[in-house]
């Protein structure tokens, strides 16, 4: 076991992939000489050369589009999109080309791209640097979407993503970049939990609390805090946002009868909406209360002095848990519909 920060874990995963497969190439802005604006790719150009760790001109559509061509040629490109809010110029290539190429060619052409996207807020950034665009990609058939919450998953799931023959959007919780954890770097990949699997990260009996990426830590903190009130929260880390592995969620909700989902992204048609719908379909007779969503608001990401209001925090999550338990502390608006 080695103690690594989340950025170091991603770096180690990239290094391992570059070592193991000569067809792995990295493309992105500032990833070479600088080592990435978050230093995630630090040292990789020096060790693997500028032909494998490629500083590209500033054009996101071209980063994705040339990666499509490289994949056509048999390469396994790993693209870095510098910030979440910069992915939109590459959106057409992702949605119209990367996601559809395999089905368009009836399996003849594979698109084993990994697209790394630092995402989410909480770091005091200007506009376009704190967004949570994952639902756009979850809605796009042909893509896989994953988000690790800790260094071990960051390392293992990145390697799994690069090895996967489907295109994978890999959302990095950038405000957890400096979180440290023990990472087993030499465990065989085949024995690891599949990247598509969700996982119960804290057992509990009263409420099932589902999250992913940056808010898993907050959810775990909320579970600890709730024990003071005698409330037992089971925390589930989705890990894979597309497809979602529902089996652990369904089993959990059938035990607890209550579901809270929390994410930074806005509420309308976010992950929480889909999870609430599916769990309602599959657990209707087990639910003691309506599923509760604790999310960012349906607003453009606000200036950083306001982000503490936008981002779900420990107290808002516990407020949601209380609502699921039928003892709301605050106005929910639900009664207004009567």
């Amino acid at each position: 076991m080695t103690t690594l920060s989340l950025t170091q874990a991603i770096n180690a995963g990239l290094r391992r992939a570059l070592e193991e497969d000569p067809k792995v190439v990295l493309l992105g802005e500032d990833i070479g000489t600088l080592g990435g604006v978050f230093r995630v790719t630090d040292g990789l150009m020096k060790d693997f050369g500028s032909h494998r760790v490629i500083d590209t001109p500033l054009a996101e559509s071209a980063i994705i589009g040339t990666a499509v061509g490289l994949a056509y040629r048999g390469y396994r490109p790993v693209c870095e999109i510098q910030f979440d809010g910069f992915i939109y110029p590459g959106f057409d290539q992702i949605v119209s080309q990367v996601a559809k190429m395999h089905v368009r060619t009836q399996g003849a052409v594979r698109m084993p791209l990994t697209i790394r996207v630092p995402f989410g807020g909480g770091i005091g950034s200007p506009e376009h640097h704190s967004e949570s665009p994952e639902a756009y990609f979850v809605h796009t058939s042909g893509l896989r979407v994953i988000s690790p919450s800790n260094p071990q998953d960051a390392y293992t799931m990145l390697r799994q993503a690069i090895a996967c023959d489907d295109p994978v959007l890999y959302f990095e919780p950038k405000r957890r970049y400096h979180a440290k954890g023990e990472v087993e770097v030499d465990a065989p990949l085949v024995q690891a939990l599949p990247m598509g699997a969700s996982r119960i990260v804290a057992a509990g009996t009263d409420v099932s609390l589902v999250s992913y990426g940056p808010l898993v830590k907050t959810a775990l903190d909320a579970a600890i805090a709730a024990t003071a009130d005698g409330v037992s929260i089971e925390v589930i880390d989705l890990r894979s946002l597309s497809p979602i592995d529902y089996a652990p969620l369904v089993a959990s909700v059938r035990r607890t009868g209550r579901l809270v989902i929390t994410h930074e992204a806005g509420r309308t048609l976010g992950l929480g909406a889909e999870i609430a719908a599916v769990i309602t379909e599959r657990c209707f007779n087990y639910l003691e209360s309506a599923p509760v969503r604790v999310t960012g608001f349906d607003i453009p990401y606000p200036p950083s002095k306001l982000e503490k209001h936008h981002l779900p925090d420990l107290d808002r999550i516990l407020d949601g848990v209380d609502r699921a338990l039928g003892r709301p502390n605050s106005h929910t608006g639900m009664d207004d519909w009567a």
Partner: protein
Amino acid sequence: MSHLRQEPTGRDEMTMHQLITAEGIRVADALLDEFVDDVDGEQLRNLYRDMVVIRRIDFESTALQRQGQLALWPPLLGQEASQVGSVRALEDEDFIFPTYRENGVAYCRGAKMADALGVWRGNTNIGWDPYELNMATPQIIIGAQTLHATGYAMGLTLDGKDSMALAYLGDGATSQGDVHESMVFAASFQAPVVFFCQNNHWAISEPVGLQSHVPLAGRAPGYGIPGLQVDGNDVLAVLAATRWAARRARSGGGPSFIEAITYRMGPHTTADDPTRYRGVTELEEWGAKDPITRMHSYLLELGMLDDGAQAAIAAEADAVAADLRLACISLPDPAPQAAFEHVYVDAHPLLEEQRVNYLAYLNSFGEQEKTSVTVQGSPS
């Protein structure tokens, strides 16, 4: 905004290279001549044959659409020389990234044209195996394929190969950001890629003058890429120009941009009505520059096209068309489960659940109910 609709200014700053005039007369070109030194009479006749056959395929496909056998067809009428001249300049291992209109290119690459028509019949999105033909599937998103060609070419450099990629694009595509980003990347990485632009003067209803105030080939030098303008209705000049660009690509000279000046004699697709926008004299003007007619005159002058050869080529074209028609109308409809196939390489439990449930739903109908559903859904 009417000034936008003028002819591009600065056109006279570029020379349109030509080897065979509209009247079928061979003229010298200092740049291009050396690239076709080896082309003998028989090869010229083969280029002519290619053009005749793909025009015949194009006519047959338009007819199949009119008869309800195809949902849509994008005619290439008038662009035969641009397509044949460019593809015949390539080696088999060179990889082509085409648009939806390069069906003549596909024929020359050996595509089974009935399979290619499956795309336009609505059966499939793929008309050939890209790795069998070294030719990607037809791209519908305008300009997107230029990035794919550039990336593929970057891969060729990484692999130490001396082959190249060629992207087809149209005049409308030159307004797309992807095309400009392609030229930036191609220049930065000196990728062995050729941008082959068929300027057919119309992007559906929009004239080329709306896309650019300078010749399209004139944009390339701004990216550090040489741009060449060639008579796109002159198959020999197109062959030579593409060989010029290919030699640059294969010898480490980096990317090139070719603007083939041609004309779309048909509609954008069979769903289009060009009489709503096309000038009244244009068809006549461009009909006089027809790529097949001029080659016909040139071959007669060379004594390479006697009555027997002409009849043989016409018979071959008719046979190809007849086979195409029969194969096209015999294409079976895809099975319902085909919609779910190949969306992912690896297992996807949620999609699999949808597939299984839908097939179970379909199977819940007996044969009789299936028939009645079809009857209800049919036009009365």
